[in-house]
């Protein structure tokens, strides 16, 4: 399924695989440096951690474009990226976008997962507080992203806003191509259930975020 999405995104974007990253250096030189600097990614990283480490050194198309354009793709490319982002989204089967905000808070606090020293294969965190203010009671929040305090209230708790928030978290590039926010759903960082839970943290009337 994932493969199909990626393949169709490839076609949709019309990307050639030899995008050079920066003006001053060819893709070939860069690839050589990368493979000599990360010699044996799968062997050098702890066993038991399931990901294919070597594949992380290969950029996907969105990553290539956003790197090369320094997150400023031209209008046409931006529109294509947004379309591909939208196409990658899977929706909850029950049609409900709001899960359990209490669990959402835990996910938003949790910065663990997917690093080579994270030995457990448990669910990864969303680490939203690293970049966002959310519940005002949490003072240790980062500022790379905008404040999400009172997010639901500001969006008048509408069903359309619930959906848009779910989509934004699933693939942040739906609205802003080359966003600096991770694609939590598309890249498999969070599950659909987890995304519903963080959506509830932001959008639910009971959530402390909206008190």
């Amino acid at each position, binding site marked *: 399924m994932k493969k199909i999405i990626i393949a169709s995104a490839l076609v949709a974007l019309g990307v050639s695989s030899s995008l050079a*990253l*920066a*003006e*001053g*250096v060819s893709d070939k*030189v*860069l690839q050589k*440096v*990368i493979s*000599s*600097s*990360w*010699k044996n*990614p*799968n062997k*050098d*990283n702890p066993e038991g951690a399931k*990901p294919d*480490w*070597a594949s*992380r*050194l*290969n*950029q996907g198309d*969105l*990553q290539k474009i*956003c*790197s090369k354009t*320094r*997150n400023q793709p031209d209008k046409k490319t931006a529109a294509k990226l947004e379309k591909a982002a939208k196409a990658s989204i899977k929706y909850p089967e029950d049609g409900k976008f709001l899960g359990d905000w209490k669990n959402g808070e835990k996910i938003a606090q949790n910065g663990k997962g*997917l*690093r*080579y*020293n994270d030995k457990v294969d448990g669910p990864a965190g969303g680490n939203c*507080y*690293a*970049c966002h203010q959310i519940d005002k009671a949490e*003072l*240790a*929040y*980062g*500022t*790379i992203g905008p404040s999400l305090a009172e997010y639901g209230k500001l969006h008048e708790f509408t069903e359309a806003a619930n959906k848009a928030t779910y989509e934004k978290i699933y693939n942040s590039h739906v609205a802003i191509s080359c966003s*600096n926010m*991770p*694609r939590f759903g598309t*890249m*498999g*960082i969070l599950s659909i259930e987890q995304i519903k839970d963080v959506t509830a943290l932001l959008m639910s009337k009971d959530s402390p975020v909206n008190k």
Partner: protein
Amino acid sequence: MMKRRLIGAIAVGCAAVFATFTAAGPVLAQEDASKGIEEYRKMMAEDPFANPGLLFVDSGEALWTEKRGPKNVSLEGCDLGKGPGVLDGAFAELPRYFKDADKVMDVESRILWCMEKLQGIDTKPIIKGAFSKRGEGGSEMEFLASFVGSKSNGMPMKSQLSHPKEKEAYAIGEALFYMRAGPHDFSCQTCHGTKGTRIRLQELPDLAEPTEDARKTVATWPAYRVSQERVRTMQHRMADCYRQMRMPKVGYGSDAVTALITFLAKQADGGEIQVPALKR
């Protein structure tokens, strides 16, 4: 004599800092970390020798002058770029191109080169242990890099970009700085591309441009990291940011890391070297 005083001061400082890191929430821990650093700074204002990083410098000097390896020579003949044996100001001009190795090297890869070529030492185990573990009190690379770095203290960073290979290393470093990869799509730019942002409460220097941030933060590695209770080197800083980026382990002394450090050195050009600085 001096060493004993140092150890006393560290014991007091570390106990205080350690206690603070067991505190409950991240805010508390962060505030306490800042307080811990403040306390160190106060101690250092009263007594400049209270910087626990100076122990690493002392150990580095002892290692530098000790005859070692199959060839039983010291590192005193090592050419760090300004000629064999010249230490003063050499660190300020690293990374640079070395003809004998035909590549650009940062301070750590150059020290490794000298160990291998001058002393005949097998550097594999040294590379393996380059980042010391808790309780080890420091690694050879941490000692030596601190010592060599301290020999440029007070001098401005002088980024070397005249040789074509230096230019190439810079360009590779720049490309790597903007390279988004891994499950989180992070590049260095994600966290270090804007002035005045932070992750949780940790302030993030803007390193995308030649900024005051860059001059202040890059010219101060190796640094004594209060949270880790030992000196960490720039190679470690790069490896740790790649870890946070969810990338696989990057090679110690690898060309990618040298290239990134070459890029950073340019952004920090003119920054005053203070090594080992005290950091969170």
